């Protein structure tokens, strides 16, 4: 109405400009380098920008990061039995598994995970009946080729780092 609406718009952007200096968890140019940053409370104004390579959010427990293997505390090995359920469940054929042994003794010999093609859908974990794999919290795995792979040992190490004990801990699926 005769320019009032335009002035109202200017008022809103001015409010945002001012509040970007006065409110919000990260209004100061200082970077929080020590440890992950908590998520901001929902708000309409104020500075929230996460300065990513320097600061990182705490991921939610359910965050679907890189697939990891969980270590059986008794044997110190992966619980994977090479049953191929995850291989069948994967929509993109990211996993390649070979096993050795028969019956209850069957264990995974190799477990190859093609990181560059994974879409992090967690269908493999949902299909796992042996508490062997879970999606970890790591997400900084840049590969320059499509076929960068992780093997069983690396995935076990990642599992140790993630601190996950059982599949589906965060998902409320552990009986």
């Amino acid at each position, binding site marked *: 109405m*005769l320019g009032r*609406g335009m002035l109202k718009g*200017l008022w809103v*952007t001015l409010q*945002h*400009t001012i509040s*970007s200096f006065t409110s919000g968890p990260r209004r100061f140019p200082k970077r929080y380098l020590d440890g992950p940053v908590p998520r901001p409370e929902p708000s309409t104004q104020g500075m929230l920008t996460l*300065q990513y390579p320097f600061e990182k959010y705490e991921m939610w427990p359910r965050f679907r990061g890189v697939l990891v293997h969980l270590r059986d505390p008794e044997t110190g090995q992966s619980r994977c039995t090479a049953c191929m359920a995850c291989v069948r469940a994967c929509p993109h054929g990211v996993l390649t598994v070979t096993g050795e042994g028969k019956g209850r003794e069957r264990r995974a010999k190799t477990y190859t995970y093609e990181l560059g093609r994974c879409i992090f859908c967690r269908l493999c974990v949902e299909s796992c009946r042996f508490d062997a794999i879970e999606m970890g919290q790591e997400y900084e795995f840049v590969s320059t080729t499509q076929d960068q792979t992780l093997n069983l040992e690396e995935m076990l190490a990642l599992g140790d780092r993630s601190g996950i004990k059982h599949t589906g801990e965060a998902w409320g699926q552990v009986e």
Partner: protein
Amino acid sequence: MGFLDALPLTVMDWLRGLLGQGLPAWGVELVVGLIKVVLILVVAILPVIVLTWLERKVLARGQDRFGPNLAGPYGLVVAFADAIKILTKEDIIPQAADRQVFRFAPALVLIPTLLVFTVVPMGRGMIAADLNVGILFAVAIGSLAVIAIIAATWSSGNKYSLLSMFRSVAQLVSYELPMAFSVLTVVLVSGGLSTVRIVEAQVIPFALVMPIAAVTYFLASLAEANRSPFDLLLGESEIVAGHNLEYSGMRFAMFYIGEYAHIFVIGALTTTLFLGGYQGPILPGYMWFLIKTMAVVYVVLWIRCTWPRMRIDQLLDFSWKLLVPLNLANLMLVALVFKLAGTGLLGSLLSLVVNVGLLVAVGTFLVRRARSSTSRRTRALVLGEV
């Protein structure tokens, strides 16, 4: 004039005296003139460096972002990083381009903008050339930019650029008129075309004496500089940066510098004409000039942060149907007021009253016409009905 206020002049005089010992009079003037040219270039280019940074920061803060903050403290070095990037890029000339014109146009864009600085008084006595037709010079040189843009767009041999040219010519030509009218009002009151004289005449800043002319001048110069909401020439979402679409590397940088120098020109000229130029208490004159200019520049950026772009026909309507008649009426009324009441305090007060009265009258007229209008757009714009 305090010590600080006169400091640049003192330095200049000392330099003159120093040179006068070894050089003939014309030699002194030559060297001093050259120094002034260099100073003008610095004054014109330095703000570009600051403004590229400032624009990003202002936009970012308005959008709850940081803006550049990694290149140097507070991202201040970002302009230099940009410059290095842009200078090392390949200079591409399209096959369909008119090569000579294509090469020449970017320089033509920059020159008028730089020339305007010669007549801007940046402090008490700090002016490169106090022409007696100073403001006429500024307006005339400013409108040269349209030729540069025609040259750039036509020679690019690109359809988007062609569309951009149609728009820019229509836009720049139609906004010359309201701009000239508003400048004319100022000239009328101050009684001279010299920029120094205009500044000295502003005991009360002209923005308070004749707000209509001030706002019109500001909007028209936004259109001249192709700034939002009149940035049809660039139109990123439709014609993909229009006139500089085919340019790359150093030639693109010329457009870039020209654009930002133009923002500073808007600020400088608006300050000179309407905000009392270098006049102000306590602080030295050049500081006041800088503060006022930067305030205007901030408004330019703030507007860019908030408003969408106008459409070309509405843009022309706005100029021809609203700004031109309004300023014509304003010019006559203000002339009458100052003839009757003199240019003193009484005249200024009356002029303000007349300005407000004119705005109210136009508003009432628009509302009345909109009430009887059946056009949904008119009703929404004027009455706020949707």
